[in-house]
């Protein structure tokens, strides 16, 4: 069983806290769920729980950053949205060195229902000037992205789901803003993020039987988008499918459509949530209902190839 992203996040914070005295962690009464409680236990003097107040969470983190601390502020993805304007006005507008790490993104908080499921946070955070936005696809990438984010100076938003199968091993070298070629192929490029990277690899296996060869890239940094890497992959195959556990509006699909329509107008099919809210259920049931399965990616690949030929 692969390690959950939030467990990796919590453990990595403790590791990094040992090496970096300036690392401070804030939470809004969800530290057990986000796993920042591990840091709190180890470094209580550097952990600040502001209670159930996300706007105050962002503002307090901003103040700590102003004084040279490196604050990591954590809550559920959907609740960070409550403090969107604080992220914009107090943090990003000043370019403050705050790391916002949100958990339970997409449908990964399946049982709690639609109030707790964040389907649009990539879109609203991506629109903030000066914000860096990362969506890791497995625990190793979560760890490496967090390290890279702490080394980077400026506001970063890291979006974590709950569980994800392992894709990378310890040899993985993370580079902020550079997508990763996880499977080379010639027929269609799947640009995926988060848990959809592994699902794209499954789709590639499904399409092998039909002699369709998928190129899969992991777009872990959604902003700034790796235009060069994506255009190169799109040029090679001439057809692109985007895949994300997020609305098709304004997320990875939106970002890549913007990029390619201006630079390399090839057919793009977007796999994502079709402008809808979730509901309570099992994780896999939700992913199936909202057409986020390997089969859905495979079908989108065929559509994209057909459009290219048409």
């Amino acid at each position: 069983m692969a390690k959950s992203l939030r467990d990796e996040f919590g453990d990595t914070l403790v590791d990094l806290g040992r090496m970096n005295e300036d690392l401070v962690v804030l939470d809004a009464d969800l530290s057990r769920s986000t796993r920042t409680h591990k840091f709190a236990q180890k470094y209580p003097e550097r952990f600040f729980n502001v209670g159930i107040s996300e706007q105050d969470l962002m503002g307090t983190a901003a103040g700590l950053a102003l004084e040279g601390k490196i604050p990591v502020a954590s809550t559920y993805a959907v609740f960070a949205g409550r403090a969107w304007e604080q992220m914009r006005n107090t943090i990003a507008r000043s370019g403050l060195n705050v790391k916002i790490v949100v958990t339970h993104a997409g449908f990964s908080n399946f049982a709690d229902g639609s109030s707790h499921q964040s389907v649009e946070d990539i879109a609203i955070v991506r629109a903030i000037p000066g914000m860096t936005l990362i969506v890791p696809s497995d625990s190793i990438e979560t760890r490496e992205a967090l390290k890279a984010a702490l080394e980077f100076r400026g506001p970063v938003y890291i979006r974590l789901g709950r569980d994800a199968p392992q894709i990378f091993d310890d040899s993985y070298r993370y580079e902020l803003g550079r997508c990763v070629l996880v499977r080379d192929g010639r027929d269609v490029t799947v640009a995926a993020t988060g848990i959809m990277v592994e699902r794209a690899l499954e789709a590639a296996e499904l399409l092998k039987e039909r002699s369709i060869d998928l190129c899969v890239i992991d777009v872990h940094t959604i902003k700034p988008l790796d235009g060069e890497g994506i255009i190169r992959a799109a040029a090679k195959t001439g057809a692109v499918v985007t895949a994300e556990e997020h609305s098709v509006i304004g997320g990875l699909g939106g970002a890549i459509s913007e990029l390619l329509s201006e630079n390399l107008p090839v057919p793009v099919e977007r796999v994502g949530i079709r402008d809808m809210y979730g509901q309570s259920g099992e994780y896999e049931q939700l992913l199936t209902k909202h057409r986020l399965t390997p089969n859905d990616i495979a079908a989108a690949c065929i559509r994209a190839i057909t459009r290219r030929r048409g």
Partner: protein
Amino acid sequence: MRVSKNTDAVVRLLSDSYKAGLEAKPEGQRPTTLPLARREISVTGNLPSVADLEEIARVTRLNVLTMISGAGSGHPGSSLSAVDLIVALYFWKMHHRPDDPRWAERDRFILSKGHAAPALYAVLAEAGYFSATKLSTLRKMDSILQGHPDTVTPGVDVMTGSLGQGLSVANGIALASRLHRKSFRVYVLLGDGECDEGQVWEAAMTAAHYKLDNITIIIDRNMLQSDGATETVKSKEPLPEKWRAFGWNVLEVDGHNFPQILSALNLAEAKKGAPTVIIAKTVKGKGVSFMEGNGQFHSNAIGQELLSRALYEIESSKV
């Protein structure tokens, strides 16, 4: 109210007004530089007198009105009510170095009611952070004086403007200063209308919980907000009791009475174990008879004729 957008005309008229109100000065030389400017304050123990502070406040008011009219927009009433409070901080209470704005030991100031920016800018110029000639660039393209506080201005640490967010930032600064074992203080100026914002109370709880006694808030209690009287729009009272219930040490002063303001600032510093809020009863538009208590001047620049009258009134109030 008609507001001239022709800034050249306004500036020309302004210098005429000055000439009328003051003794004639050569063109381009503004009557703003007092002997107190560019002096390190309070470290030397050589504090200005109450009369000095009143004079600085008077000049600040002249500049605030001139700046806002020159810009053609802004919040004159909200700026004038806050002038004495900001002057007391920068010329009497706070440790700071205008020639070294990033001095690590400086006391921090956050103008959470960011729309009073002209008052802050006029005080910063008076203190020597930048030349007073910059004041006429308020709200102009590429100016260091943005419509709301921005770090492009020397001496401004925190970008504000959207109400309700300053106290949270102050909490973060105060927590960091505790980790760094620093002794500087953090001052926050809040509007009374601003206390409608939920984040103010989130942050009030946080500050009390962490016993951030290095924070002092001053509330500019001018009783008016954008849509009218604070008690009509959404009642704030009993405001002192609310802050007390949130765990704060509460002081109440006349926000235009320097001895009271200074005494409260000292009491706030002496208080240990809890943050202090000074509720300063103020008059919106203070210093100009036709603006005082008049909500019409919350966010309206005044035109040339009224400006001349206002400047004349302030000028003739000199003791």
